[in-house]
């Protein structure tokens, strides 16, 4: 599925620099991501992993440098870029007053939905069977993280940007995420993941990025 170097890389960042207050977290950083790639971003706390991910998906503005999606600057093609992207940050974006089912159906209605899976199947696949109609605030942090992960199953999106997806997940949750990642990459998807745990994803070309 991945067509090598002929096409420009789907996601490309060219010497981006990030400033936090007075400190320069990183500068002159360039990276590129092609279909089928998994980029692992590692580094100690405060090294700017989250800032880098937020810059890549356009939530934050780099103090210099440019981020391109399919060859055009993301500040120009805002809507098209966001239609092909999902970002899971530290706080999971699940509304406590709504049930997982309602949360998921809203997320799917706003994005490009996949037709081949129903909401209940997705919730079941992430291990929330039986919790579909309970207000999300009564769920544990791990369960709320799973509701957020279920969004990855119900939407058809090429780029996943995951900020430490394994936090608050038990071992079965970690293997679940690894399986989802493998499936996504196999279908020509891309992912940028920041994490401290080693990610066991078989025969996938992993690009490692170390932030000092």
């Amino acid at each position: 599925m991945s067509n090598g170097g002929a096409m420009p890389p789907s996601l490309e960042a060219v010497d981006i620099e990030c400033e936090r207050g007075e400190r320069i977290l990183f500068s002159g950083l360039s990276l590129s991501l092609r279909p089928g790639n998994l980029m692992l971003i590692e580094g100690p706390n405060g090294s700017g992993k989250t800032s880098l991910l937020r810059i890549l998906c356009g939530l934050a503005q780099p103090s210099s440098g440019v981020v391109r999606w399919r060859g055009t600057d993301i500040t120009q093609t805002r809507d098209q870029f966001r239609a092909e992207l999902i970002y899971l940050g530290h706080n999971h974006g699940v509304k406590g007053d709504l049930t997982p089912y309602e949360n998921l159906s809203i997320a799917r209605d706003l994005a490009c939905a996949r037709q081949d899976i129903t909401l209940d199947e997705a919730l079941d696949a992430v291990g929330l069977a039986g919790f579909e109609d309970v207000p999300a605030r009564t769920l544990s942090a791990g369960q709320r993280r799973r509701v957020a992960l279920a969004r990855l199953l119900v939407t058809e999106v090429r780029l996943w940007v995951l900020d430490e997806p394994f936090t608050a997940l038990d071992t079965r949750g970690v293997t679940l995420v690894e399986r989802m990642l493998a499936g996504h990459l196999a279908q020509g998807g891309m992912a940028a993941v920041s994490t401290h745990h080693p990610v066991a994803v078989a025969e996938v070309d992993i690009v490692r990025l170390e932030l000092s």
Partner: protein
Amino acid sequence: MSEAPGLFTALGVLIRRDLLLALRRRAQILNPLVFFVIVVTLFPLGLGPEPNLLQKLAPGVLWVAALLSAMLSLEAMFHSDFEDGSLEQLLLAPQPVFITVIAKVLTHWLLSGLPLLLLAPLLALWLHLSPDAIVVLLASLALGTPVLSLIGAIGVALTVGLRRGGVLLSLLVLPLYIPVLIMGAGAVDAAASGLAAGAHLSILGALLLLSLSLAPWAAGAALRISVE
């Protein structure tokens, strides 16, 4: 690959989402309305029950009270979404940002502006306002309260990232409310003294159109800045 939903379907989804959220916390909708009633009843207690004094002050009192209670409920527009991270998700939705802002403003108006509109005639009677002045009051509130929500959305979007943004929000938003207050209260005052209020209402309409075109852009830009 299926296409992302159109603007109007997304608007519909967002409005349904916010109404659903609001109904789960019914009390929060009532608070600003109770505040509106209490503030209006304070004035006769402060100024004395004398009818034609109250009648003379009624337009100003009703409009200032409506303005304050609309502002009171602004905070809820983005705050809970900012707290749990869903504001980021809304900013990353395929639809342009102003769709999100318009949906939020419309919901805020449905839950605060519209009830004010329904309550206002009752309170106007308490202040002995004449019937045709009440009609103009309703017209001016119908045109004015959306402007309050739109301009308020800019203020909230600017201060959503701050811990104690409440007081700052009123400092930012109240000066911008002054033209609406002048035109709104002026319309009711003109009607109460038997003059035509057409000019005031048309200016209110102009303010509505202006803020409809300016506020979504400004609030969208402010949201993108506050989320950074």
